[in-house]
């Protein structure tokens, strides 16, 4: 609903999030006051001063603790990485064989400088972790990205008790409530079956790390052959080495295109309907394109991509999931980052929770691309980079509704 009418911006008026301007000012000037004093917010990202390391830095730093291997969390060029045991090979696969990675088992505590660090499963993708940092009796947990739903390709989310919980909020609106994954897979499989009957090749856009493997586990291989893009092949190998059982798939390309045409399923991170790579899989009745993403719950996002179908399946927690994780952390303070920060913060405050915004990579709420669910896929060796982030940013953080 658009509010029309005259309105003036003044100190006496709350902004669109119902936050008093002075409180907003406090946020911008003194937001780190809400974080415990041993965590500083630097231009490179959150920094643990007594430990001497960054958490998911967004620029190359000396020492980085990484929650998971998606490119918006694992940046190239750091001297030393600390990640979970399952995450380390993914980091090597994506950032280069020669990086220095130190790995930890889930729950294993190590001393780093004056703090104690441990990693705990976050359920987002293979090897994803929440970072627990303890310093002089205060425990802070950085959730990274997480989901609570069951996923055979990732260790299940474990709530970690802490004093301060920094949660993501990509889908922090009550419109986002996921259906059980089995239902979504049922729908994907029946879509595939129907395409096969009508001579169309099914194409699923899903990113190469995490979503693709989760989807592969949900597909019904009895329907037809499954082909995957080279970027997915690379990730699959790491998953297989970690003991995740995936169905047999083809490395989709010229040689096996005839096998896939009209009856197969192609899983690819390349979100471009007309790419020459895809066209070779054209069945007698062409291709049927679909995307798998949490954003697909919204009709506008589905329509905008001009795809035939959109399946709402996400590796992020939904509204209920976020609220449950926050509750189960039993933290006194909740920092909200990455996504619907302002909405989630206000909601939590109204529930009597001491919540604050932890700014993400880009200041304020101005820049696109920050809450894209789609990280870059890896490229096949020797191939030219393919455009992957063509899925438009839905910009869900940028809302500007005037409060009535």
């Amino acid at each position, binding site marked *: *609903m*658009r*509010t*029309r*009418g*005259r*309105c003036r*911006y003044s100190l006496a008026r709350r*902004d*669109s999030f*119902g936050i008093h301007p002075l409180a907003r000012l406090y946020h911008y000037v003194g937001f780190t006051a809400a974080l415990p004093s041993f965590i500083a917010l630097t231009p490179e990202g959150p920094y643990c001063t007594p430990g001497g390391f960054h958490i998911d830095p967004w620029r190359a730093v000396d020492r980085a603790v990484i929650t998971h291997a998606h490119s918006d969390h694992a940046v190239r060029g750091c001297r030393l990485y600390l990640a979970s045991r399952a995450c380390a090979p993914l980091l090597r696969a994506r950032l280069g064989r020669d990086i220095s990675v130190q790995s930890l088992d889930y729950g294993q505590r190590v001393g780093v400088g004056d703090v104690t660090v441990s990693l705990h499963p976050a359920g987002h993708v293979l090897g994803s972790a929440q970072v627990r940092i303890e310093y002089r009796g205060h425990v802070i947990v950085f959730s990274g990205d997480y989901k609570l739903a069951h996923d055979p390709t990732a260790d299940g989310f474990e709530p970690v008790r802490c004093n301060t919980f920094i949660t993501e909020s990509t889908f922090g*609106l*009550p*419109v*986002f*409530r*996921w*259906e*059980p994954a089995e*239902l979504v897979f049922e729908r994907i499989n029946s879509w595939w079956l129907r395409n096969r009957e009508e001579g169309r090749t099914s194409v699923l856009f899903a990113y190469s790390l995490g979503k693709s493997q989760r989807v592969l586990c949900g597909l019904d291989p009895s329907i037809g052959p499954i082909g995957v893009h080279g970027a997915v092949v690379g990730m699959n190998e790491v998953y297989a080495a970690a003991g995740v059982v995936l169905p047999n798939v083809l490395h989709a390309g010229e040689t096996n295109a005839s096998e896939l045409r009209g009856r197969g399923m192609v899983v690819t991170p390349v979100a471009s309907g007309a790419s020459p790579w895809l066209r070779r899989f054209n069945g007698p009745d062409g291709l049927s394109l679909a995307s798998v993403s949490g954003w697909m*719950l*919204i*009709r*506008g*996002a589905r*329509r*905008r991509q*001009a795809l*035939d*179908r959109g399946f709402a399946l996400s590796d992020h927690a939904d*509204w*209920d999931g976020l*609220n449950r994780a926050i509750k189960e952390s039993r933290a006194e303070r909740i920092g909200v980052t990455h996504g*619907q920060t302002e*909405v989630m913060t*206000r*909601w939590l405050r*109204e529930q009597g929770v001491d919540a604050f915004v932890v700014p993400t990579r880009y200041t304020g*709420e*101005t*820049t*696109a691309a920050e809450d894209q669910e789609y990280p870059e896929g890896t490229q096949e060796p020797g191939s030219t980079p393919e455009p992957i982030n063509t899925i*438009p940013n*839905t*910009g*869900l953080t*940028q*809302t*500007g*509704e*005037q*409060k*009535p």
Partner: protein
Amino acid sequence: MKRFARLYDELDDSNRTSDKIASLERYFRGVPAADAAWGLYFLSGRRTKRAITSNVLRKCAVEASGLPEWLLSECHAAVGDFSETLALVIPDHGMTTSQPSDRSGKDSLDLTLKDVAERLILPLPMCNETEAGALIREAWSILNARERYVFHKLLSVNFRVGVQRRLVARALANAAGIDAAIMEHRLLGEYAPTAEAFSAILSAAGPNDDATKPYPFCLATPLESPPAPDTDASAWQVEWKWDGIRAQVIRRSGRGGRLAVVRDGVVVWSRGEEVITDQFPELRALALALPRDVVLDGEVLAWEETASRRGPLPFAVLQTRLNRKHRNDRSEHGLFDQTDLVYMAYDLIEVDGEDWRSRPLRERRLMLESIVKEARATSPRSVLRLSESVPVSTWGDVGMVRAGATQAGAEGVMLKPINSEYHVGRIRGDLLGDPANAGWWKWKIDPMTLDGVLIAAQLGSGKRASLYTDYTFGLWKDGILLPFAKAYSGLSDDEIARVDSFVRTHTLRRLGPVCLVKPGLVFEIAFEAIRESPRHKSGIAVRFPRIARWRDDKRAEDADTVESARLLLNVRYGSMSPTTPAKKRSGQMSTPRGSRRSRAAGTDRAGYATQFDLFGPAPTGGGA
């Protein structure tokens, strides 16, 4: 309701016409007639009365979801559609939000569409808030998320499914096993959503004798690239493209219709398929004075006939008529008596009860000419005119005629193949192929343009939700930018993404949902007409503004000024009637509030963008 929601999903998901028709046909064949009757009612674009205000609906939603109202607003902003937002936040089957949501809805109860329409939607306008809330909650307790979404769409006044009426007609024609054109004719006009009416529509014989029904209009395709000037154009009839209200005048005195709107067998239909007989009593008089029963196709125009000028007045003048029901319902302007109307007839569809649509245009035209002549001979003061046809031999000539359109008070030329029949809807055909198969073409004069600066932006809705796609453009006046047009269309997705990121990084401040942005981007804005408007700060308003192109070669300072816009005021119409006092002109053009949207003329009329309330009213009487 489940079946209807599934149909909605199928139509929504599919991009192919054949799939859509198949889905529709399956639906109409598969459901009971009483449901199909309502399905057809909604699918053919008919509306119930506004059932419930969004405020009441929002209150119910706050109650049912347990969420604060501000959070619903945030959700709405993110989703971009109120119906969808509500459908998503309402818990399924009385579950609270904290419980895991199961949206399978597989075992849920079902309501028939008839139930939903007659028991839940129709009584709503008569209900008070409490009763309405009870009905809404009842619906929510039974419907699942997808069905709720469709239900909300039915409640709102803007239920759209993305099927043209034509497709519905083709699906029904398939189901009934009759010709699609006959079905389209059956679907026009009044329709009550009852099982009987639906069966009648599907019947083989059909109620084709209803005397009030209009024929589907033959529509024209915009001509983008004309053939070479030396190409032969002798197979084409060239007429002016009038800027008025398209109307079908029906006189079937021999057969009385059932409807109250029909008196003496005369009824006037607008292109938006509304009866406008009462708004234009002159047309009724015209029809009564005709020598025989006919159905005419033509254009209603406001007309000026003075010593110095004979020609049509701008559409804005005609607009003042549209919302008045009766002639004696006069406005303070007394415009009703001042504005003279003419009916510019250009086609003949029926003569003495016989359908003439399949006869060639040449033959229809000859008959039309003789009828107009006869009518004007018997009643010299008749408002009936024959839309002149301009003789041409080559496409070069057509171009010349078009160049003179402004002088003639027209907005371009119409091209009709002289051997063609009167088509249903829009038929393109091959411009240079066999003209007998070609449809009508319209070749408009180039729109006026101004270079405006982007000064404000708002999030779009629907497909463009959460992108800044609704823009306000300003012109310079004394060193400040005054808003003059709002435009939503004309940019590619890629350009929209770039403007979106500009808006996000250059927002000066926010006024509710509107971001005022730093002047920097310049766009060429095209529009069809310009008029004075004391209600706008810039003192002018433009009609159908859209973005012609992004002028990234220009800086904000290089954009146009209000003065340069005012020069355009005199280009059209004005120059043709230098004797018309300026005062009278501006008085005529200031349409009263609320009459801007012309329901009678359909959706493609009266497109003046006039929503600048955010910037406050104009300081004084503008440029009047």
